[in-house]
């Protein structure tokens, strides 16, 4: 890491994040990388872990997958690549292999964004080794099968940090499924995942993420996306299981001409979960466009924040923001914050936000078909959340639908 970055990280050690409850990092254990053994076969992954992986769409048998990376706590334990057109490996391996890779670090996410990015950087320098994964699709390649990556927390009270770099070279297409989960015995932990995406000219990435954490886990992903000319980035996020808190606010820089961004979030708040999920897109390239869509359902005592910020900074850009929420319990809350900012003429930006309850008329209609009120409500809620996930090739769309259906089982 560059000395100047390290200095910045040190200064930001105590810097609170803009959103989300502040977390005392001292409460968590910093386990070293290499605590868990490296595996050579997917089948060596412990059975219980395999089950957890399946629930978040990561297939240990690697059927119809182009490659896999699994990080357990702080250690990259498994990585394979089935195809020569895409690379997937631990960051430590990648940094050895590619000298140029360090130039991509902390360019899409500022190292001093907050204490979580700072902590990730400081640990990288302390241990002298980076956790997280590196993914790269070679120029012109189009891999239809997705790569899969998993961040798994196996030990109690662990602070897991990961620094991921994803590069789609010119005119390549890349599909990634990531799942995050915790072991059965884990009740409390902290996950910080820094992800930096770089899409070169004409590249396309779809990134589908399913989270299934334990009830006392705090999650602070930090994501930045650089989008080049005619490149497209589609982000799908699914979380329906209880968690202590998640605060995530990926920022996309659409500096390329005709670059496109789609953020879709499906959020089911349960128990005492605090979900603060947003997205920001800076439309700086001529003709660039963005869509941020979220569907949120709050149950029990959950609190959901659905944020979105679209900034049109040049002419001929387009943006649309949509947050729809269903409040299912009086003790829960949905807070929709759609923000639009236009600082050029000739731009088109709109938003649509609605928070409400399940329509009684719809429930009655379904009871007149023989469903009970509960069955009807559940069918309506599932229908509300199961929005079509755009941008995926047909095989992956089917697979993603399955993942989504599985996530909605618990709602």
């Amino acid at each position, binding site marked *: 890491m560059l000395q100047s970055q390290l200095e910045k990280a040190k200064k930001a050690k105590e810097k609170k994040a803009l959103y989300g409850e502040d977390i005392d990092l001292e409460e968590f254990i910093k386990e070293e990388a290499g605590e868990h053994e490296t595996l050579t076969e997917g089948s060596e992954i412990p059975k219980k872990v395999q089950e957890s992986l399946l629930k978040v769409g990561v297939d240990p048998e690697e059927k119809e997958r182009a490659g896999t990376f699994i990080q357990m706590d702080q250690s990259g334990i498994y990585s394979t690549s089935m195809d020569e057109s895409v690379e997937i490996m631990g960051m430590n391996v990648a940094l050895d292999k590619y000298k140029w890779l360090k130039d991509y670090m902390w360019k899409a996410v500022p190292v001093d964004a907050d204490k979580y990015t700072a902590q990730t950087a400081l640990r990288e320098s302390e241990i002298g080794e980076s956790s997280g994964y590196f993914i790269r699709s070679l120029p012109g390649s189009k891999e239809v099968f997705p790569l899969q990556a998993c961040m798994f927390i196996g030990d109690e009270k662990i602070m897991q940090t990961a620094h991921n770099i994803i590069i789609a070279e010119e005119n390549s297409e890349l599909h990634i499924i990531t799942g995050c989960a915790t072991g059965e015995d884990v009740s409390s932990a902290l996950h910080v995942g820094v992800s930096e995406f770089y899409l070169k000219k004409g590249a396309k990435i779809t990134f589908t993420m399913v989270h299934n954490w334990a009830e006392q886990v705090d999650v602070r992903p930090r994501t930045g996306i650089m989008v080049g000319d005619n490149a497209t980035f589609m982000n799908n996020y699914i979380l329906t299981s209880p968690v202590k808190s998640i605060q995530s606010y990926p920022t996309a820089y659409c500096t390329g001409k005709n670059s496109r961004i789609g953020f879709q979030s499906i959020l089911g708040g349960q128990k005492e979960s605090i979900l603060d999920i947003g997205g920001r897109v800076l439309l700086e390239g001529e003709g660039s466009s963005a869509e941020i869509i979220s569907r949120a359902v709050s149950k029990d005592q959950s609190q959901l924040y659905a944020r979105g910020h679209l900034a049109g900074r040049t002419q001929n850009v387009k943006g649309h923001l949509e947050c729809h929420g269903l409040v299912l319990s009086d003790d829960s809350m949905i807070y929709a914050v759609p923000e639009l900012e236009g600082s050029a003429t000739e731009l088109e930006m709109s938003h649509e936000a609605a928070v409400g309850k399940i329509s009684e008329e*719809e429930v*009655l209609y379904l*009871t*007149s*078909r023989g469903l*009970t009120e509960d069955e009807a409500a559940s*069918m309506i809620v599932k*229908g509300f959340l*199961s929005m079509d996930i755009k941008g995926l090739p047909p095989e992956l769309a089917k697979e993603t639908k399955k993942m989504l259906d599985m996530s909605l089982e618990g709602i």
Partner: protein
Amino acid sequence: MVVKLLLEINDLAVEVSGRQVLEHIDLYIDQGETHVLLGPNGSGKSTLFMAILGFPKYKVTNGEIIFKGEDITDLTTTERVRKGIGVSFQNPPSVRGVKLMDLLKVESGQDPKDEKLSPQIKELANKLKFDQRFLDRDVNLGFSGGEVKRSEILQLLAQKPDFIMFDEPDSGVDIENVELLADQINVLLDKEKKLGMRKKSGLIITHLGYILNFVNADTANVLLDGRIACSGNPAEIMEDIREEGFKGCVECCKVN
């Protein structure tokens, strides 16, 4: 052959939001019989429909509803439907996110996790001119008037109820599709079977009666000001209404 009484309504009074809408309603529908309910707008036809269905807003303040020999007055809509009552709504709500196909699976008792719709239901859908793309659409969302009605009938075909109420089944349907709909209503009501062999019964609400050109009814009831003012042969009653209007028709009834 002993004719079985399927639906029996005795001295029913119904209140909606504190307002008395129906009073002293008596209605008896035998197994295999189709009744039609006529009446001007606001006479209480839809209220009777909803009260038989058991929607919570429609409070029964007097009388009873007996279905298959059992008092269902206090049962929920779900319970009534599970006993064999089916309905086709005039203006059903759209249910965003719920695909028609998924609802059909539930209605026909298919496992909702099955990827495909059973061949039988698929065939019924084809008869009603619905293709897979249509079945993948959200229930009633952006459907045309005719599509709504065909979808209601298709759902009933999947459900196979013993007693079916149709609220204005032909309103908003273009002429060529009325016959298509009527064919399937006839199937639902066992009309292709011989008189004594019919098991299914129906109650058709209509204020223009156009559908009766295609579906034969056994008895017509005229609802006026919250009461059944007249019952009798559908053709004769329709004739009277055409000539004399609803009020005149009721006068006729009194004379007879």
